[in-house]
């Protein structure tokens, strides 16, 4: 006697979302948020040059890359807290002495919500995106999250 086939998913209700932002946070990858271009420098770069790069490109965040992998970050926050008004005495030191090593990052296969989670929980303003081999894929900045949210909410 052949048993009648019972579909185990017969009662499955697909997840419903009350809002387009909620759906996007859950289902779209973090790569959906604009994550390029980004700028990297080497750990040996003098911190004065790192700061000049931030200023010249009008950006607030640099990723420090060594051997093809992310090893640290240097942002306006490090420039404020660790350099302050002492650029003349500290400027020749390598950026590796001032960078935040082992920054929190997300993988390119994570949901877009993961970038917001890092920002909301850890207070980090920028979130690097890396692949499974720790190679840098991009950066999510506050401005890009604002743009993502305004686009999702059709506020333009």
């Amino acid at each position, binding site marked *: 006697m052949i048993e009648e086939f019972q579909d185990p998913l017969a009662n499955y209700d697909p997840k419903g979302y009350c809002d387009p932002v909620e759906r996007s946070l859950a289902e779209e990858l973090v790569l959906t948020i604009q994550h390029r271009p980004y700028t990297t420098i080497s750990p040996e770069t003098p911190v004065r040059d790192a700061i*000049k790069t931030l200023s010249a490109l009008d950006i607030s965040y640099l990723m420090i890359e060594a051997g093809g992998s992310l090893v640290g970050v240097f942002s306006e926050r490090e420039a404020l807290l660790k350099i302050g008004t002492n650029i003349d005495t500290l400027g020749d030191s390598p950026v590796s002495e001032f960078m935040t090593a082992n920054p929190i990052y997300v993988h390119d296969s994570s949901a877009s919500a993961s970038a*917001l*989670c890092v920002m909301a929980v850890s207070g980090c303003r920028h979130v690097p995106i890396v692949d499974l081999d720790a190679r840098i894929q991009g950066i999510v900045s506050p401005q890009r999250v604002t743009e993502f949210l305004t686009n999702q909410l059709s506020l333009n």
Partner: protein
Amino acid sequence: MGLQENLQAEQVCSLPLRDPVTVSPNTSIAEVVEAMKTQRLGCAIVVDADRRPIGMFTESQLVRMQAEEQSNYDVPVSQIMSQDWPSLKQNAPIVDVLKSMRKHNVRFIIVVDEEGGLAGLTGQRSMLEYIADHFPGQVMVQRIGGPPHLHNQEGA
């Protein structure tokens, strides 16, 4: 009610406003930088004698000063500050914070009371906390700082 409706219905004063660093126009840049370091805030609001905001000094302006040779950190902040920083009233809808940050490409928004006096500071961090509160099931359950699930799977 979805996020879009809440952003329109709720007022800026319901966001977690932050206590800003406030300084007088005659405060030197060196003193402003020390105050920002102490309170770990990326900006300082310059206020007049009636505590009305008249300008803003940010980490980005500090980085520009660091990038220039021979910057003078003893000058009054009034010579460097931005005078046209965006502000919102406490009873403005929260959606205006997003719109204002996008329009002016800034992270901070000054919040003022009905008389134009400084009421607090909001911006990117407050908005992210608001979104995270709205969708805790999506945002707060994310795994961060480690390899994605795919990386841990063994076998077929």
